[in-house]
């Protein structure tokens, strides 16, 4: 929800998703090819600044969107740096020889994360799906993406309403009741999923949609220029990394 809100609020949502996708791809490649952790961190910092200043994503929202991935990354680096077991029993043991690989992995991952966040925080998902459609992604995958994205918000609303109704009748007074109420809510959602699937199928049929779900994305009148700018920026980024290396 946070990512979706940022993407729809960003002034860069009007920029061609192909241009932003190309630049993000170049940044991902740069993260992978960065010869040193320092350069990868520099790239990550540049991308973060670009997203905050250019795409106008508020810092708290950025940190909120990055937090889960940063948590996984911290866990991954810690598992490289520390070992459990050995002569000291189960106490964690620091591995100095893992410092280098952990720094490389951490810095590259941060840069890759920043590249992806740049793309998703400035591009609404329907635009990304439209881009994937242009790139000839299989229709069935696109249909699933469209429906999952739509249903995510429908069921978030149903879940929130159900939870509020339970709370209003003391369904969440205490841990045991709360657990029971959540179970009831989850069980209640299942038939609703089936019903909603049937209803959406009927709705699609009424508008002659008996095949793949086809939509027309908004047009981006300056897409060519933006793509050219993105290509130049991508080339500059990769060349810059090469020179600094």
């Amino acid at each position, binding site marked *: 929800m946070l990512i979706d809100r940022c993407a*729809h609020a960003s002034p860069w949502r009007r920029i061609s998703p192909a241009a932003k996708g190309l630049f993000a791809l170049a940044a991902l490649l740069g993260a992978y090819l960065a010869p040193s952790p320092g350069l990868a961190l520099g790239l990550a910092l540049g991308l973060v600044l670009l997203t905050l200043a250019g795409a106008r994503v508020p810092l708290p929202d950025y940190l909120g969107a990055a937090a889960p991935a940063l948590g996984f990354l911290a866990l991954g680096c810690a598992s490289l740096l520390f070992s459990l077991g050995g002569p000291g029993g189960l106490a964690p043991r620091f591995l100095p020889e893992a410092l280098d690989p952990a720094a490389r992995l951490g810095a590259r991952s941060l840069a890759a994360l920043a590249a992806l966040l740049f793309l998703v925080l400035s591009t609404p*998902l329907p635009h990304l799906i439209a881009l994937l459609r242009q790139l000839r992604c299989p229709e069935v995958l696109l249909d699933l993406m469209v429906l999952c994205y*739509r249903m995510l*918000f429908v069921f978030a609303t149903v879940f929130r309403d159900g939870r509020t109704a339970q709370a209003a009748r003391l369904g969440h007074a205490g841990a045991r009741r709360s657990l029971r109420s959540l179970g009831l809510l989850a069980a209640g959602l299942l038939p609703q999923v089936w019903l909603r699937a049937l209803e959406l199928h009927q709705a699609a049929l009424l*508008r002659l949609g*008996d095949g793949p779900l086809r939509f027309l994305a908004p047009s981006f009148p300056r897409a060519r220029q933006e793509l050219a700018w993105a290509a130049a920026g991508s080339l500059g980024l990769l060349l810059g990394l090469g020179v600094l290396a």
Partner: protein
Amino acid sequence: MSGEALLRFAAVCQRYEDGSRGLEECSLSIRPGSRNALLGPNGAGKTTLLLHGVGLLRPARGQVEFQGRPLDYGRAGLRQLRQRVGLVFQNPERQLLSASVYEDISFGPLNLGLPEAQVRQRVEAALGAVGLADCRERAVHQLSFGQKKRVCIAGVLAMEPELLLLDEPLAGLDGPMRREFEALLEQLAGQGITILLSTHDVDFAYRWADDLHLLAEGRCLASFPARELPRQQALLAAAGQALPAVLGLHRRLADLGLLPDEPPRSLDALLAALDGAAPDLKRNPA
């Protein structure tokens, strides 16, 4: 209500799989270019009737006809029908397939096989018609309930149907939204689109519709021009509907000799009639 019907239900019977009644010998006709309101209590069969109108349900007995021909329930027949008849569900969440306003409206015209330029033209026209031109870039989950309903209508309008079926379009709308919606309905009817809608709002139905259809327990009790409603009070009561407020008020004022016997269709019309009678009232206040 003479002349060839655009849509006709001829003694349609249908039961749902759980045994509950859908329609029972239900017969009614919709004239081309007319504004029609279905009135009836919950469970009367209003939604079921609308689903039959687009071939989503099939009668067990009786038949549904479009332009004098029985519906063809084959794939090609239904495709042809749904190019000409559009249905807007009561709950917009049931109808919106895409999370993007622009994309969702484009869904129908794309399925008609129209070229991209024409689809874009139709989407823009539909957005303009429902007053959502500024929302084209927004996600549907960011819209209000009323705006979602408008997106649903735009999605159907973009297919340029001849007959528009609306299931309780005013349900859940606040006062200003209802007024906007009524203006939209007025505009659509003005474009020559035949409209059939279900509603519980007898005041609105009397004010807006050309023809009223009263449903109860799966049957159509009566169809008549809306202007005849003052003379159909018994049928109205049988369909579980109250008399429009304006008629009660008019009756009292007419009994007092303040207004002529011809009843107005809306409070605005009644106020205008009172204003017209005001000079007389001033001359003869008693």
